[in-house]
């Protein structure tokens, strides 16, 4: 059913927004709603995509947030089926006390299962576990023509591969089934190690992949010259049951009540923060952390995206494959540092070589770099142009879930299977992102 008159919907980065007709479900047994006016429709979970891949400006959105029921949790086998609007936070609250854990967690728990599938999200254990989609065993795809398909890798490999990472363009996922992994408890053994430059960081990152399930690095992207790429590598494993540490407050903590008139993230605050964050750490620390704090440090501050002010922010996340990845990362960080457009969150991670299941999945073996920038208009666009050139030259690609601006040719070069994917897109599904990157195809 339709949920009221057209509404302005914005995504997490607050740079893409626009008017949508919004539809919803009251149960997973309901038919695909009749979208009036013949406009296109896009499934919409919790709106945590940063750019326009979760928007369909001028068209319709089909909200899945009311499809938030668990279907079955088998605490012996470690399998879970639930509706597509269930958020990972809800899954964690149900499965962790029973000694199970999702195989892959992205940087926020406030994403829906449907969104995690549609973007084939990844986490700090990509080098071990691959993407979220690697652990999805089955889902139901409801298409705008009313057809319901039960999809699995064995029975419908083509639709399975098209829908995982398929950005909602094949129809709406109504429920999914996934495998979980055993854990002894909610705690992680976390080591943080300060690295003086990029070489040290990359070397330690690759070395840590052998013995640590989770690895991720924060990079001080204002550092230049011989300090370029200095940062802190975090590596962790699930702790055994005996470990314990204070549980963080979680969602009851701070909230940013409104967007300040200007971004609080700017070069002055960044310089202070980055220097303090880098030097605050001793060379090496070892702590026991609750999984909430380790996986979702930003979830503790509700609406942290508002810190960037009314103009919002961009996240630039790329992956560079192959042996040239280290050099490309150096060029990217050099370009960022030279531009002085410091990024508050600069995250570097070495992806492993487990193949992603989706035709349009983002992760591939190599180095991924994610950078947040307050939206400062033209100077930032110029920097993005320089970064794009480095990514294109090294055969890399950008992550649609984070993107509001990548050129169409960069998308199509980075995702060579987009032609194959086109055969599975539903003519009645579209998104602002899709129209943008395919307009000049």
């Amino acid at each position, binding site marked *: 059913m339709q949920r009221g008159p057209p509404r302005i919907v914005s995504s997490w980065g607050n740079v893409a927004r626009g008017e949508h007709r919004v539809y919803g479900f009251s149960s997973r047994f309901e038919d695909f709603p009749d979208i009036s006016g013949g406009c296109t429709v896009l499934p919409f979970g919790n709106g945590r995509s940063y750019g326009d891949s979760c928007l369909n400006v001028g068209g319709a959105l089909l909200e899945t947030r009311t499809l938030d029921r668990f279907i079955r949790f088998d605490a012996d086998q470690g399998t879970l089926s639930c509706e597509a609007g269930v958020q990972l936070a809800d899954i964690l609250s*149900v499965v962790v006390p029973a000694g199970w854990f999702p195989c892959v967690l992205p940087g926020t728990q406030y994403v829906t299962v449907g969104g995690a599938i549609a973007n084939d999200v990844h986490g700090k254990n990509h080098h071990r576990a691959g993407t979220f989609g690697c652990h999805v065993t089955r889902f139901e795809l409801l298409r705008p023509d009313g057809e319901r398909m039960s999809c699995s890798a064995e029975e419908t490999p083509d639709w399975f591969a098209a829908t995982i990472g398929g950005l909602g363009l094949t129809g709406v996922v109504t429920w999914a089934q996934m495998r979980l992994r055993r854990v002894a408890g909610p705690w992680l053994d976390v080591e943080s190690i300060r690295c003086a430059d990029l070489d040290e960081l990359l070397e330690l990152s690759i070395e840590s992949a052998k013995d640590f399930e989770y690895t991720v690095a924060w990079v001080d992207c204002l550092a230049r010259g011989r300090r370029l790429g200095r940062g802190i590598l975090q590596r962790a494993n699930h702790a055994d049951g005996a470990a314990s540490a204070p549980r963080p407050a979680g969602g009851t903590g701070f909230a940013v009540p409104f967007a300040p008139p200007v971004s609080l993230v700017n070069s002055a605050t960044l310089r202070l923060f980055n220097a303090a964050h880098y030097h605050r750490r001793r060379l090496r620390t070892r702590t026991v952390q609750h999984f909430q704090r380790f996986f979702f440090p930003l979830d503790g501050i509700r609406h942290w995206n508002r810190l960037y002010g009314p103009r919002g922010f961009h996240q630039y996340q790329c992956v560079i494959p192959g042996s040239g990845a280290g050099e490309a990362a150096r060029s990217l960080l050099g370009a960022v540092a030279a531009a002085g457009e410091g990024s508050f969150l600069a995250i570097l991670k070495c992806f492993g070589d487990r193949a992603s299941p989706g035709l349009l999945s983002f992760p591939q073996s190599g180095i991924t770099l994610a950078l947040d920038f307050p939206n400062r208009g033209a100077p930032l666009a110029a920097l993005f142009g320089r970064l794009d050139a480095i990514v294109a030259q090294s055969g890399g690609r950008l992550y649609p879930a984070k993107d509001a601006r990548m050129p169409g040719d960069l998308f199509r070069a980075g995702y060579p299977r987009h032609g194959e994917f086109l055969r599975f897109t539903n003519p009645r599904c579209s998104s602002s992102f899709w129209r943008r990157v395919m307009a000049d195809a």
Partner: protein
Amino acid sequence: MKRALIIGATSAMAEATARGLAQRGAALYLVGRNAQRVAAIASDLTTRGASQVGYEALDVNDFAAHEAMLDRAMRAAGGLDIVLIAHGTLSDQHACEGSVDLTMRELSTNALSVVALCTRIAPRLAMQGCGTLAVISSVAGDRGRRSNYVYGSAKALVSAYLSGLRQQLSPAGVQVLTIKPGFVDTPMTAAFAKGPLWASPQRVAAGILSAIEKRRDVVYLPGFWRPVMWIMRMIPEGIFKRVAL
């Protein structure tokens, strides 16, 4: 461990309340019109921690079926600590003005079925000498308004009935809770444009659970509706009849 019967279990407010009870390990018995949807909610509540979930499909306008349903619910849970009556339909006022049948049906669903259920539930709880009967009425019942007076008058009947029932059951140690939500963002109100006065079903559910715990009599959810509705009731009829609400 609480034992709760929820009638109208597929309504968004009831489902959110049931989740709160499930997380506390309650034993639940769910009643709703659509069997498939009640079954899906039962599975969900089991996963969320309910110690036991029974359910059945029932049309509340089938008054004769109430007694057997109540028997089954009490047997399944071995007694009841909480009965939540949450079913309802948001009447299309304009359509009601053109149809006696529709108006009577709306009054039956939103008022008479509630009275029929309460009539049968009251002696059971009185005999137990404890428990809570919580019923979702509405701020719409505080004063009839042009835009929804069929729905509003049904809720007014429910509120008045519960006020009397509270006097009757109070000596027996039974709590009768009248819940008056304002605008709640549910599938029932899908067609309305949402503003700052709208509350989520989760917020209303938290208020319901807290009111049960504190043994309150009448709650407005969220609480700001209490002064708003007081002012609404104070407006003289001579002025009120000229106001478009």
